[in-house]
């Protein structure tokens, strides 16, 4: 065919471009904030106990904790040069699947293991089972774009009604009541949710269901179960829509809510409305209780906190390992790395990356559990 010969150059270009795009998409997902691990390399590295670990440590899972892991790995690598740690932020579902198939030493996940996943884990954990270790917290901000409105207070019921398309305009009475001083326009509310499955959606809908069960009839989950509403792909996608659409509102991890996106202050059981900040998220996590059985430290967040400054729309990501029966060749490295990230230095690093450290009481249990891993 004559056509093919003529277009060979275009085809080569195309092939190059396609492979380039693959490479780009492969490493370009969920790059939040700046991972400025260049400057602060040496301070904590000396306290890391390498435990004589050697070899490759493979892990994968949640992309929400990617920046935290990146910062940790940079520190850990400089202390323990014999361990090559490789964390692939493929998503929580993929991470758990890989872990259950025995491909990785631990998995990162935005939600705790389901009962059937714990059941399945008995195979890879040699009759012991997999457990959840809460490691990284983070506030989920509700970002909005209403010209002329610089601060906005909403409560759980109003949020649920907005995302359920019951409240349709910004000057609705329910919103006016919470914001007596604001000049609310009559524009339509454009509520955006994530079109891809996501732990952020899971935790946001868990909050709506937990804090306003009457106004939110849908089951919480990684995919958006409510009907209607607009959607976009990825945290950066919804942030982009909020930025360029007047009247838009959506939920996203705090690090995406910047450059012209304002965040909603939440009216909780406390006296003052609560801002979405890292510290306030930690305060809310401190009010949660552990619901996992035995050594499993799965948390149940308190979605109606009464403490001042506790911001309840938070996301907790877990590291998932076997309680017993971890693979012998990676056990030392796994324990050493987890000990570091659950320790004081590891948790202190989180704030710089826009995450919330796990509060002391829960953190102590995590450290004890890691010590007992075998």
């Amino acid at each position, binding site marked *: 065919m*004559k056509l093919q010969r003529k*277009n060979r150059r275009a085809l080569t270009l195309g092939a190059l471009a396609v492979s380039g795009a693959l490479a780009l998409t492969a490493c370009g997902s969920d790059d939040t904030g700046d991972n400025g691990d260049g400057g602060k390399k040496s301070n904590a590295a000396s306290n890391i106990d390498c435990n004589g670990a050697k070899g490759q440590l493979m892990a994968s899972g949640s992309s929400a904790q990617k920046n935290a892991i990146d910062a940790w790995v940079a520190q850990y690598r400089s202390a323990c040069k014999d361990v090559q740690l490789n964390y692939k932020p493929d998503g929580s579902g993929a991470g758990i699947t890989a872990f259950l198939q025995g491909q990785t030493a631990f998995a990162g996940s935005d939600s705790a293991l389901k009962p059937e996943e714990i059941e399945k884990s008995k195979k890879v954990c040699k009759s012991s089972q997999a457990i959840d270790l809460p490691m990284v917290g983070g506030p989920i901000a509700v970002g909005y774009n209403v010209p002329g409105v610089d601060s906005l207070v909403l409560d759980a019921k109003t949020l649920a009604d907005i995302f359920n398309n019951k409240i349709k305009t910004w000057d609705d009475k329910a919103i006016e009541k919470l914001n007596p001083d604001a000049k609310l326009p009559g524009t339509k509310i454009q509520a955006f949710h994530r079109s891809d499955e996501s732990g952020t959606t899971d935790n946001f809908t868990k909050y709506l269901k937990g804090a306003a069960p009457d106004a939110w009839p*849908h089951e919480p989950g990684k995919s958006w179960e409510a009907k209607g509403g*607009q959607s976009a792909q990825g945290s950066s996608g919804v942030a982009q829509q909020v930025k*360029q659409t007047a009247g838009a509102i959506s939920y996203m991890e705090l690090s995406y809510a910047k450059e012209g996106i304002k965040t909603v202050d939440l009216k909780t059981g406390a006296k003052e409305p609560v801002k979405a900040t890292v510290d306030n998220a930690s305060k809310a996590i401190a009010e949660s209780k552990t619901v996992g059985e035995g050594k499993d430290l799965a948390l149940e967040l308190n979605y109606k906190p009464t403490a001042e400054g506790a911001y309840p729309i938070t996301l907790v990501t877990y590291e998932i390992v076997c309680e017993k029966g971890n693979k012998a060749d990676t056990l030392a490295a796994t324990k050493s790395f987890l000990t570091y990230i659950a320790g004081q230095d590891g948790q202190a690093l989180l704030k710089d990356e826009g995450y919330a450290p796990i509060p002391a009481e829960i953190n102590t249990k995590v450290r004890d559990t890691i010590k007992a891993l075998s």
Partner: protein
Amino acid sequence: MDIPTDTPPTPAPVQDDRPTPAEQKRAARGATRPGDRIFLGLSRGSGIALLAIMAAVAAFLAYRTSVALADNTGNFFTTFEWDPAGISSDGKPVFGIAVLVFGTIVSSIIALVIAVPVAVGIALFISHYAPRQLAAPIAYVIDLLAAVPSIVYGLWGAIVVAPNLTGLYSWLDDYFGWTGIFEYQGGAPRSLMTVGILLAIMILPIITNVSREVFLQVPKFNEEAALALGATRWEVIRMAVLPFGRSGIISASMLGLGRALGETIAVATVLSPSFVINASVLDYGGGTFAQNIASKFSEADEYGRDALIASGLVLFIITLLVNGAARLIIARRKEYSGANA
């Protein structure tokens, strides 16, 4: 034990210089040297490998599909929902492809309706109207369009094109809203129409290139004969060029349709998907097969992935049917299109 033998010594076999039938055949094919045999083996191997790969893909899709469909409590073809984890139904998986079939076909049709006339126009301009100095650069730019990766189209579509379509959609709503197809209720313009417009730009190069090649192959005699009869340039194109190129345009469109059906990341970036079917192509919502797989795959558990693979099988079948239909049309047109003259 010396037994005398009377039998005469066996005669030496007659040397026959004439080639045996088998040798004749081989000679006729001219394939006796090692190079020829190696090349024959390689090309035959490639052909077989292609078939084997296709069969392997089909078998994989079919196996995982059967796993997924066995537990589906919804109707795979009519359910307007995608919930393989059973979040809203006590862990019973419910999923169906109705919305995806609709969205995939509608957005591809919009893309074809926009792209084919423009592509044929460009191809005719390059092959019959443009001066040579202009034709070459235009053809080159069109080739370049094909080389832009789809994620770039997606980002451009989401950040530049979509926000600027509000005016067009309001206009369509004002004048054609009564049809129901072009009703616009506000909201960010991230609809099947937007996807169609973006896909049209993406499939433009391939349709243009194939059509141009076909138009350039129109026998000069036909065109000159038409000119000699006193035809104007447009009449030459209508009487000689287009009838000759018709099957080429159709196969070019089908190639473009194939790309539009399977486009993934650009659609996922531009569309505001949800599992509803809107009568209006301007309202947000809907979805396509490839977009749905891309959006849901990374967080799906094993069963969720099987469900997505089941939808992939349907796309595979739709693509096969489209290609088959294109071949049928071309085969039927060939006889009187002059393509084999």
